[in-house]
C-alpha cells in the first residue's frame, strides 16, 4: 500500500514536472487548472471518502479562498503569497468551522441539504451585495509574488501549483494514516460504535470539516491567481456537484482516486467540448459529459481507481468477493 502510493507519487511528480517543457502555453494553462481541481477534489475526498460525510457545499470554501485573495490584495502595493495564502485558507477554514458546527448536528440526506443551503447563502452574499462586485466578478490586478519573487509566467505558476498539490497529497496521506485518520475511517463505517468505545465523534468530524475547508480554500486561492479574475460562479452549487462527481468518478476511499477523477473529469470535458471531434454538437458538451459519467458509475462501481482490480480478477479468473457484514 505504502509502496504503491510512493510509486504513484514519484511517477506523477516526474511526469508533471516534465510536462510544461513539452507542451504549449495552452496545455500548461489547462494542466494548471486540472491540478487545482485535483487539490479541490482531494479536499472533498477527506470528507466523503474517509469520513463518510457527503458535503454538497464545498464550492463555498473554494470561492471564499478565491475572493479573499482578490479582495485583500486590492489594497496592497506588493501582495505576497506568503501571508495571502494562509489568510485565504484561514478565512475558508473559519467559514467551514461555522458551517460544520451547525451542519454536523444533522445526518445523511439532511447533512447534504444543510451544507448546500449554507453554500447557497455564501453564493448570494457574494452575488447580491457590494462585497462581491456582483455577477461580473472582480479582477485581480496585482498578482501576489512569493517572497518577492514574482510567479508571473504560466510555467512558474504551474510549478508552484504542482508543489501545492504534492504538499496536500502528502499531508492528507499522513493524516488519513494517523490515529486521527483511522478514527475518521471508524466513524465512516460505524459512528455509533465509535461513540460507544469513547470517541467524541462530533469533534473529529468538525476537525475534518475544517481541514477540508482550508484545503478547498487553498485551491480557490490558486484558481483566482491563475485566472486573475473571480466571479460568483466559483461558489455555485454546479461546482460543488462537479467536484463530487470527480471523486466518485475516480473512486471513493483513495486519495489517488480523487486526483485521477479530477484529471478524468477535465479530460472528458475537454474531449466533449472539442469542435474538431464533435463539430457543432460540441455546444451540447454537457450531454456527452453527463452520459459518460453515468456510464462510468454504472460499469465501474469502484471508479477509475478500481479498473486494475477488475482486470486482474478477469485475467486471474477470480472474483473479488465484496465484503459485507452478513447480518
Amino acid at each position: 500500500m505504502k509502496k504503491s502510493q510512493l510509486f504513484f507519487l514519484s511517477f506523477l511528480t516526474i511526469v508533471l514536472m516534465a510536462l510544461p517543457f513539452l507542451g504549449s502555453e495552452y496545455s500548461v494553462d489547462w494542466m494548471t487548472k486540472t491540478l487545482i481541481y485535483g487539490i479541490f477534489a482531494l479536499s472533498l475526498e477527506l470528507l466523503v471518502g474517509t469520513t463518510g460525510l457527503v458535503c454538497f457545499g464545498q464550492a463555498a470554501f473554494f470561492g471564499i479562498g478565491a475572493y479573499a485573495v482578490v479582495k485583500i490584495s486590492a489594497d496592497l502595493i506588493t501582495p505576497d503569497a506568503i501571508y495571502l495564502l494562509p489568510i485565504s485558507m484561514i478565512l475558508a477554514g473559519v467559514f467551514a468551522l461555522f458551517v460544520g458546527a451547525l451542519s454536523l448536528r444533522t445526518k445523511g440526506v439532511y447533512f447534504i441539504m444543510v451544507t448546500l443551503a449554507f453554500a447557497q447563502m455564501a453564493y448570494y452574499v457574494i452575488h447580491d451585495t457590494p462585497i462581491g462586485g456582483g455577477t461580473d466578478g472582480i479582477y485581480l490586478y496585482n498578482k501576489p509574488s512569493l517572497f518577492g519573487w514574482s510567479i508571473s509566467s504560466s510555467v512558474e505558476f504551474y510549478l508552484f501549483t504542482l508543489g501545492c498539490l504534492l504538499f496536500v497529497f502528502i499531508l492528507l496521506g499522513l493524516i488519513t494514516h494517523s490515529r486521527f485518520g483511522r478514527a475518521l475511517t471508524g466513524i465512516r463505517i460505524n459512528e455509533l460504535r465509535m461513540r460507544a468505545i469513547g470517541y467524541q465523534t462530533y469533534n473529529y468530524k468538525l476537525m475534518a470539516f475544517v481541514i477540508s475547508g482550508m484545503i478547498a480554500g487553498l485551491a480557490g486561492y490558486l484558481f483566482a491567481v491563475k485566472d486573475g479574475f473571480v466571479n460568483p460562479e466559483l461558489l455555485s452549487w454546479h461546482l460543488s456537484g462537479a467536484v463530487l462527481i470527480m471523486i466518485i468518478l475516480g473512486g471513493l476511499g483513495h486519495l489517488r482516486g480523487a486526483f485521477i477523477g479530477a484529471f478524468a473529469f477535465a479530460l472528458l470535458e475537454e474531449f466533449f467540448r472539442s469542435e474538431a471531434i464533435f463539430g457543432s454538437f460540441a455546444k451540447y458538451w454537457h450531454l456527452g459529459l453527463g452520459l459518460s459519467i453515468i456510464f462510468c458509475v454504472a460499469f465501474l462501481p469502484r471508479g477509475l481507481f478500481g479498473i486494475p482490480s477488475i482486470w486482474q480478477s478477469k485475467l486471474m479468473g477470480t472474483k473479488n468477493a465484496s465484503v459485507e457484514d452478513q447480518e
Partner: protein
Amino acid sequence: MTQDQAKYLMRGVKLTKRWGGLVAVNEVDIDLALGQIHAVIGTNGAGKSTLINLLSGELPLSSGTVELLGSDVTEKSQPMRAHLGLGKSYQRNTIFPELTVLENCRLSAQSRIQKPWHFWQDGQRCKVSHQRAIQTLEKTGLSTVIHRQAGLLSHGQKRQLEVAMCLATEPKVLLLDEPLAGMGADETDRMLNFLISLRADHAIMLVEHDMDAVFKVADVITVMVNGSVITKGSPDEVRNNPEVQSAYLGESE
C-alpha cells in the same frame, strides 16, 4: 457473595424513559457490583435494551440518575462515560466489517490514547494500542484470525470480536446486550466460561434470552416486565418466585 459489602461500580436510581405516553422503563433501580454478573431478563419489549442504553448514555433519561465509579454521570455523554470505564457490546454486530480483526480492536484501544494532533505518526504503528489489541484478542481466542477482514468471520467469531472490542478499552463495567445471540452450543459454553473469567475484575450486566445460560452464570438476576422491575434476587430466589413463574418462566416449572 454478600451483596451488602460488595462494591458498586455502577448504579442507576429510579431510571425512567418515556416515549411520549409510553413508559419504556419505569423507575428502575439497578446496581452493578465488582465481581458480579448481574443478569437482566424479561420478555420482548420489557425495556432491557432501553435500560442498557440509558446506562451507557446512548439515550437521554426522562428522569433518574446514573452513577459510575462513585461519580454522577447523568449529564455525561456516551463517549465520556466510555472514558471513565464503561464498555458496551451490542445485540447486533456493530464491528467494522471492512477492517481487519486487529484494526477493529486497535481502534477500540486507541480511544484511550487518541492524540489526534500527531498527524505524522501512523496510527497502526501505535505501540500501546497495538499491544493492547493483541492481548485482548489472545484472551478472547481470536489470535489465529487477527489479519482476517472482520466481515469474513463466522457469526460466533463476530460475537467474540464484539466483546473483544469492548474489552480493548479496558473498561471496569461491562454492559453486554445479548452476547450469546445466535451462537451454537459450543460457542455459548466458551463465551460463558469467558464471562466467568472476567467476573473477578469487572462489574458485568448481562441482558440475555438464553435462560439456561443466565441461571448458570448470574450472581444476581433482575426480572423486568413492561418496563418495571418485578423482582430481584439470587437465581434460586428468582426461580422460585411465583410472580416470575407466571409472568415469564411459564406455569409449569
